[in-house]
């Protein structure tokens, strides 16, 4: 989230799309309730299903699964049209000064409006011309002789981003959008008007989204659509605004921060690739992306080398020296062009290319897409280690009904893990607050905290490599683990293993560091107080640069702070001394965009920061949240643009960084009941289709299906399907469908039904409800149903897994699976 949960209360309009916040974030939903009751906010719920969140909304708009870009694209067009007619209703200064709306783009660039759904530079693949990749050489702005982007402040030039955006979205008129999405026109217009009203200076709107947005073959572009809408309305950086990803688990934010995804290292650094032979090659490639010649652009990622070297120092300690590139050669390298995502790994496993698997707090036999396929892939393993609280379907895959255990050769190990209440450590919530948790009770039986498990395991692996050697022995034996995590007493004053790791994440001075005047800035072993002090010469370490400042010698572990006073002068509820927030305890990021060129807030009542000329003995200073850099306002010397992580300092309405286009374009899900109404390009042309033979024909599978979660169960179900109190509430796998579809199929509520996709079938109890309705899509009636995905064959309460139906296909940029839109047919009774 760009903004914290607590800030939602400041919003004037909240749009929940691709999320069911009331259901899946019930505790945090109180801030939505506060906004409605105390700030008079309007709540808009956009969902194929009328959900518990929709039940609380002022405006509910039904939308067919997978049509977010059409839905939001129509809103963008609505705003652009209104903006031209009534510029006074919008914050044009924000648009001109803080976004790249005025940038002039290469005249050779063509939008998808001009090329039948594709952007310029598309190169079809030899095997299947419907898919391919882009040559992005035309996706760039023009620059002047100093290398600074050329701009048209009138926004009239046909090559400026604003005009290109208009051209691109001109096709997204209300009638077309409603025909694609199935939205009710009157409700859609009401939502457009309500949300666009947050474009007024001093008003704010927030978009809350979750996996309903991301789990599509164009999930990243769904979020881009939200971002563009928010930038047009001046809603980024302000209180009550933002693009807010509601994380699906309590510590998803923390796990991505610390590099658990396949394409990032901790702190969103890039994993090196095989063609980057030396540290310099890697750093050069990264720096080229962030180069700027504009003195007003901070382009913060130019500090990349400091963070990267500090990470290597943290991992390899004294073994990392300037002479050995700080151990760069020991890092594993990605093969360019090879995909390492969940789907790719399971395809490799199905092909017999992966022999061992650590499954850590994950249950792909229930949660993975095409879970029948993934369960079969597990049979190809020599060994499987499952670290979990319970025996999951994944670790019991050899006991799946219909499988003869004797036919499975895989050796399975179970390492029982302690639950969150049985261990100490930090979790980072969706709002980037890293909050410490203390142990409430001892772990059950032999269960141990994950940290202890991983440390003991790795220490033993290091010993084995020391004894037996191996091709990558140095990568393991040179790590700073031995005589460090097992030292007694622990190094550098740490009081426990988790305390040591927490300090390590923050980072230390690895040598004495001097100021320019020769005085001592840090003694060796002192904790670094800001990432601005991290160095690329090996004198500092930090295991995750964005967490530097979370633990200091002066204040201790700030993640443990528990003062719930709101110290913000405008009382907007930032709670700066409750836990600690990355980066630098900044609660609302891009907050320099919340003020005008003189540093005056757009919204004086709910200001985030404001420039006080009298502060600092008349030198001036910022008041409020920690600003995105302390530079003075835009009208003063030494200023910087607000979007400091971008090379140009401007927010990207035109975003050339993704693989599938600088603007979002509507495509149909891989399995769709209709042809794309907007172009001849049916699907995102840059995705990888793993199993083309497993794409269903809408004549055979006419019903749109989506998956969802319920409050009463948690993810793949192990933590809740074993608790009788929760099993009582949601005892069985079920299938939600409209009264109209049920009547068509002769199904009564409470009856057993079978749902089939081309990949498998599941059974569940029908819940016939008014909350689903048939939709009119491109003139034809389309039904949609929904399945919860919590069930599996193990545990106290069992049932079929909805993911037996979902496809092995993912987003073009992130490879997140397309769980949320696929085709099925429904039959009365069991199979």
């Amino acid at each position, binding site marked *: 989230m760009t903004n914290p949960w607590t800030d939602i209360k400041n919003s004037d309009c909240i749009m929940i799309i691709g999320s069911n916040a009331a259901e899946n974030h019930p505790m945090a939903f109180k801030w939505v309730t506060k906004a409605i009751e105390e700030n008079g906010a309007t709540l808009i719920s956009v969902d194929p299903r009328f959900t*518990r969140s929709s039940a609380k909304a002022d405006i*509910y708009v039904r939308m067919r699964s997978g049509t977010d870009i059409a839905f939001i694209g129509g809103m963008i067009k609505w705003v652009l049209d209104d903006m031209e007619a009534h510029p006074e209703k919008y914050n044009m200064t924000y648009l001109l000064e803080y976004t790249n709306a005025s940038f002039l783009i290469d005249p050779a660039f063509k939008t998808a409006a001009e090329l039948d759904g594709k952007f310029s530079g598309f190169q079809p693949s030899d095997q299947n011309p419907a898919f391919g990749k882009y040559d992005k050489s035309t996706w760039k702005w023009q620059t002047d002789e100093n290398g600074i982007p050329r701009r048209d402040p009138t926004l009239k030039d046909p090559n400026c981003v604003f005009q290109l955006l208009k051209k691109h979205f001109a096709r997204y008129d209300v009638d077309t959008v409603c025909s694609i999405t199935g939205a009710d026109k009157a409700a859609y217009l009401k939502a457009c008007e309500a949300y666009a009203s947050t474009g007024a200076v001093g008003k704010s709107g927030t978009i809350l989204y979750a996996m309903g947005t991301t789990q599509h073959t164009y999930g990243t572009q769904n979020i881009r659509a939200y971002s563009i809408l928010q930038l047009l309305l001046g809603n980024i950086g302000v209180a009550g605004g933002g693009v807010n990803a509601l994380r699906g688990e309590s510590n998803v934010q923390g796990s991505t921060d610390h590099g658990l995804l396949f394409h990032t290292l901790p702190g969103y650094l890039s994993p090196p690739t095989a063609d980057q032979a030396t540290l310099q090659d890697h750093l050069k490639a990264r720096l080229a992306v962030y180069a700027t010649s504009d003195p007003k652009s901070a382009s913060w990622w130019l500090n990349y080398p400091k963070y990267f070297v500090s990470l290597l120092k943290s991992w390899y300690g004294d073994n990392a020296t300037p002479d050995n590139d700080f151990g760069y050669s020991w890092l594993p390298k990605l093969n360019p062009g090879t995909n390492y995502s969940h789907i790719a790994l399971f395809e490799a496993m199905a092909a017999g290319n992966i022999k061992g698997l650590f499954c850590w707090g994950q249950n792909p036999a229930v949660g993975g897409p095409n879970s029948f396929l993934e369960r079969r892939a597990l049979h190809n393993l020599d060994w499987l280690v499952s670290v979990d609280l319970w025996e999951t379907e994944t670790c019991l895959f050899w006991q799946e009904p219909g499988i003869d255990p004797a036919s499975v050769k895989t050796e399975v190990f179970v390492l029982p893990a302690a639950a969150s209440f049985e261990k100490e450590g930090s979790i980072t919530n969706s709002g980037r607050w890293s909050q410490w948790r203390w142990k409430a009770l001892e772990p059950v039986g032999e269960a141990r905290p994950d940290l202890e498990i991983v440390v003991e395991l790795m220490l033993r692996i290091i010993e084995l490599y020391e004894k037996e050697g191996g091709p990558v022995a140095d990568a393991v034996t040179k790590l700073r683990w031995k005589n460090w995590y097992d030292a007694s007493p622990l190094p550098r004053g740490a009081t426990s293993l988790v305390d040591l790791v927490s300090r390590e994440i923050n980072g230390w001075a690895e040598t004495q560091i001097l100021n320019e005047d020769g005085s001592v800035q840090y003694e060796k072993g002192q904790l670094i107080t800001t990432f601005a002090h991290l160095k690329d010469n090996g004198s500092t370490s930090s295991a995750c640069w964005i967490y530097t400042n979370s633990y200091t010698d002066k204040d201790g572990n700030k993640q443990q702070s528990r003062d719930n006073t709101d110290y913000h002068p405008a009382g907007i509820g930032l709670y700066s001394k409750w836990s600690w927030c990355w980066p630098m305890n900044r609660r609302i990021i891009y907050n320099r965009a919340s003020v005008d060129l003189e540093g005056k807030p757009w919204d004086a009542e709910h200001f985030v920061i404001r420039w006080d000329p009298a502060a600092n003995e008349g030198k001036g200073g910022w008041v409020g949240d920690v600003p995105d850099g302390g530079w003075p306002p835009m009208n003063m010397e030494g200023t910087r643009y607000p979007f400091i992580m971008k090379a140009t300092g401007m927010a990207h309405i035109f975003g050339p960084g993704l693989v599938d286009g600088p603007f979002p374009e509507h495509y149909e899900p891989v399995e769709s009941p209709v042809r794309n109404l907007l172009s001849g390009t049916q699907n995102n042309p840059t995705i990888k289709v793993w199993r083309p033979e497993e794409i269903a024909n809408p004549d055979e599978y006419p019903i749109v299906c989506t998956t969802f979660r319920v409050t009463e169960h948690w993810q793949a179900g192990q933590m809740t399907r074993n608790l009788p109190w929760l099993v009582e509430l949601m005892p069985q796998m079920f299938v939600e469908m409209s009264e109209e579809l049920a009547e068509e199929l002769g199904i009564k509520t409470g009856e057993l039904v079978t749902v089939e996709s081309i990949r498998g079938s599941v059974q569940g109890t029908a819940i016939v409800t008014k909350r689903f309705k048939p939709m009119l899509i491109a003139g034809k009636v389309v039904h949609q149903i929904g399945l919860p995905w919590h069930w599996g064959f193990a545990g106290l309460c069992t*049932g079929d897994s909805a993911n037996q139906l979902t496809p092995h296909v993912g987003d073009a940029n992130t490879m997140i699976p397309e769980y949320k839109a696929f085709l099925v047919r429904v039959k009365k009774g069991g199979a």
Partner: protein
Amino acid sequence: MSKAVLVDLVRCMGCRACQVACKAWNDNPGDLTTICLGCYDNPPDFTGDTWSLIRFTEVEDESGQLHWVFTKRQCMHCEHPACVSACPVSALQKLSSGPVVYKAQNCIGCRYCMLACPFHVPRINWDEVLPPIKKCTFCADRQSAGLEPACVKACPTDALTYGERDELLAEARKRIAARPDKYVNHIYGEKEAGGTSWLYISPVPFTALGFPELDEEPIPELSEAIATYGTPSMLLGVAALLGGIYWLTKRRAEGMQERAKEK
């Protein structure tokens, strides 16, 4: 002065934390259920182990607008409880602080209270020999220690507010007046059956949510009549009949559970 709870159905989002908190505080086991009704309600009604539950109601108003209303139901803790006056041995009592409480050691098992209650709340565990009456206690134990009821404590959206009855009535009126577009102008329990300690405000009429339409008169008059003219033998007959029906229903539910497991 007596304590009460205001249930705001506009705020409730049906998470059922209250239902679980009730079980946790009272050490009540989970009931064995199925989706027999074809909706989220589970268990479908009060049981000896479920004293508080949420009902899910889909209501389309005259404009075609769909409301999905989540209604927490439990003992209403009437100001003039019919169950108390129906009880021949004072096993049930209305405390001046609000709760209607039950003393199992006084109970003779006549189950007049079950017949008398206009909200059909009291239950017994038919499995047990000499089963005691089971129902929401309004957490009289917690209240006596100065704590709010367990369900109120668990509610994440402040849909449940605990306090003095007079003050909650004023608060309810305030909320209705502030957003007449969101509430119907009716505080259920203010006057029904002579008033209850649990008060409700709602986005739709209460009849659509299955609340009985009751007069302002307290019900004890009626229950006293039953107590006077009914006979224990007649009631034993009723109890036996109810027990038989329960046994059959339960067997059916267990059968369904078994079938679910077999597949």
